[in-house]
C-alpha cells in the first residue's frame, strides 16, 4: 500500500480508538454523567403514603385568591402538583423553571397542557403572597397551612412533584429540582 495512505489510515484508526476510549470512560461526554440530583424514589418507598398507580389522597385547600379547590376539581384532566415552601431555595428555583416554561408558550397550547398547582407547606398566606408578588410568578398556589395534606402525601423533602393523570392516579413522583426538559417529558407521560 502507498506509504502516505498507511499513515493516514493509521491516524484515522488511532482517532477512532481515542474516541471510543473516551466514550467508555465518560471523560468527555459530561452530559452522560449521572444527573446531580437523583430521584430518590426507591429510598423513600417505605415512607410513601401512596404509590405510583394508586389514586391520590383527598384534599381540600384554599387558593391565594380564597377560592376552594379539592381533589375532585382535578379529575378529568391531567395535573402536576408540587409541594414547596418559600424558605426552600430549590423549590423556588423549581417554581421559576416551571413559570418560565409556562410563560414561554402560547395560551392556546397551554390549555392542552396539564394544570400546574403548587401546594405550599405550612406557611401563612402573607408570606406566600409576598413571594409570589415579588417574583411575579404566575402559578396557582394552594395553602396547606397546618401541613395535613403534606403529611397525607408523605412529603419529607422539598420540592416533591406529583404527576397525576386525568383519572387522579399518580403516574410519577419526583423528588428534587427538574430542569425544563425533564419537566416537559414527565408532563408528556401523563397527557398520553
Amino acid at each position, binding site marked *: 500500500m502507498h506509504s502516505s495512505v498507511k499513515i493516514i489510515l493509521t491516524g*484515522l484508526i488511532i482517532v477512532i480508538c481515542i474516541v471510543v476510549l*473516551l466514550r467508555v470512560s465518560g471523560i468527555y461526554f459530561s452530559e452522560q454523567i449521572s444527573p446531580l440530583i437523583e430521584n430518590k424514589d426507591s429510598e423513600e418507598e417505605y415512607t410513601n403514603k401512596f404509590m405510583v398507580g394508586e389514586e391520590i389522597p383527598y384534599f381540600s385547600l384554599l387558593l391565594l385568591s380564597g377560592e376552594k379547590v379539592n381533589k375532585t376539581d382535578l379529575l378529568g384532566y391531567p395535573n402536576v402538583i408540587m409541594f414547596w415552601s418559600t424558605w426552600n431555595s430549590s423549590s423556588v428555583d423549581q417554581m421559576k423553571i416551571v413559570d418560565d416554561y409556562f410563560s414561554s408558550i402560547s395560551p392556546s397550547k397551554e390549555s392542552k397542557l396539564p394544570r400546574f398547582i403548587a401546594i405550599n407547606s405550612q406557611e401563612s398566606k402573607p408570606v406566600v403572597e409576598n413571594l409570589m408578588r415579588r417574583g*411575579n410568578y404566575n402559578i396557582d398556589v394552594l395553602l396547606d397551612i397546618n401541613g395535613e395534606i403534606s403529611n397525607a402525601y408523605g412529603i419529607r423533602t422539598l420540592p416533591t412533584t406529583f404527576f397525576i393523570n386525568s383519572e387522579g392516579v399518580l403516574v410519577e413522583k419526583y423528588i428534587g429540582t427538574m430542569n425544563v426538559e425533564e419537566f416537559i417529558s414527565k408532563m408528556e407521560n401523563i397527557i398520553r
Partner: protein
Amino acid sequence: MSLYFVFNNLHFALELIGALVFFVMGWLAIDAYLVNKHHSLVLRIIGFFLASGWQVINAFHFNNDIVNFFGFSGYILGLILIILSLISVPKIATVSAVLLLPSFSKAMPSFYLIAGILTAFIAVLSFRQCKREFNKSLRLFWIGFAFIAFSSFIQIFVGNDSLDNPLWYVIHVLEALGFFCFIFWVWQYIKLRVKESLMLIFVAMTLFIATIVTLAFSTILISKIEQQTKNNLLINTRVFDFSVNNFTEKSTAEAKYISTDKDVVQSVSTEDIANLEIILGRYLDSEKLGFLLVVDKNGVVLMRAHSPNERGDSISNERTVEEALIGNSFSTVEFSPSEKFSIRASSPIYQDDKVIGAVVAGFPLDNVMVDGIKKITGLEMTLYVNDTSVATTTMSNDGRSRLTGVSITDKDVKEEVLIKGGNTTSEIYIDDMLFLSSYIPITNGDGEIVGMFSSAKPQADILDIANSTNRLTLITVTLIILLLTLPVYAITRRLLDQAI
C-alpha cells in the same frame, strides 16, 4: 464587532464554499451520467446534492432540531449513496468518483462518528480506485476526503459549536483544506470544457458575490445590533438602579409610618409577641413590603412578620438598627443573617420621647426579586456582593441550579465598577456561555460600594439574529444576481454556439 461574530461569519462562508463544491461535484456527476448513463452515477448525483444541502443548513445554524436532524440524516444518506456508487463503479471508471463528507457539529456525537467513518471509508475507496486505475487525478479527491474525515472525528469532541474551544479552529482549517482539494479536483475537469465551465463559473460567481454581500451586510447589521443591545442593557441596569431607589424610599416611608402605629408602640412596650405578629403580618400584606421586623431597645428581634418563627436574635450591629436606636431614620443596602443581602430602612419607635425599639422594613435582593425583574425586562439579571453573584436568573448548564457564588474575573469590570463606581458593558463567559453584560455599582447608605448589578443577554441570541439575517439576505441577493445576469448568460451561450 467582536471576534465571536467574525468567526461566525467565517464559518458561514466556509460552509457555503463546501456547499458550492458539493454542488459542482454533483454537477460533474450529471455530466458524466449524460455521457455513459451508468446507474451508479445517479446515486452519486443524489449523494452530492444531499451533501450540498447539508452544508447549506450547517452554514445557517438553524435552531430547529427537525431541520438539523433531517439535514444530517440527508448528509449521511448522501455519503452512503456515494459509497454505493463507488462500490458499483464500472470497471473502467469515468472521471468523477468519490465525494467528500463535510463535518458538522450538533448535540449528537454519534452522528459525527458515523459521518467520520463514512468519509474515511470514501477516502479509502477512492484511494483504491486511484491506485487501481493509476489515475492520478483522483489523488486530490481522496486527500480531500481524508481531511474531511479527520475534521468529522475531531468534531465529536466539540459538540455544540463553541468558539472558545481551540479544536473549533482545527476543524475549520481541516475542512477548508478538504474543500480546497475538492475545488482543485473539480477544476481539472471543468477547465477543459467551455460550456460547462461557463455555467459553473457563472453559478459559483453568483454564490460568491451573494456570500460577500451577505457577509458585508450582516457585519454592519450585527455591529449595530450589538451597539444597540449594549445601550439597552445599560438603560436596563439604570432602570434597576431607579427601582432600587424607589424601594429604598418606600421602605423608609413605611418604616416611619409603622413605627408611629399606636398598636405597634403598645405591643413593643409590653412585648406582646402574638399581637405584633398579627399587626405586622397585616402591614406586610397591605403595604406590599418584602420583609418587616421589629426590634426592642437592645436590638433583639421581637417579631419578623415574613418569618414569624425566627426571632430572639440580636441584630444591634446592623447599620439600620444602630442608627434607629439612637433616634435616626436610616436606609441602606446591607447583609443580614435572616434576609441576606437586602434593601433596608429603619425608624425608631418612641414612647414618652424614649426609644423603645425600631421598625426595619425593606426588600430582599434575592433570586425572587431578580426573577420578578426578568419577567418584565426579559433580560438575565444578576446581583453581586462585591464580585460574587448572590442572586441570578441565569441557570447553569444542567438547567437545575442558579449560577450563584460565581466570582467575576474580569479586571476591567472590577476596576471600573467596584473601585471607580462607574458603569461598564463587556463580554463575559459565565459557565461556558458567552454573555453581553452591563454592570452598575450598588452603594449603601454610607456611600460605599457594596456590590453591583448586571443585566445580560446571551451572545447566542444576537448570533441567531445574525444567522437568520444571513439566510434571508443570501437568498435575496442570489435571486437578484440571477435575474440581472440571466440575459447576459443566454447571449453568451448563443454566441458560443455560433462560434463552435
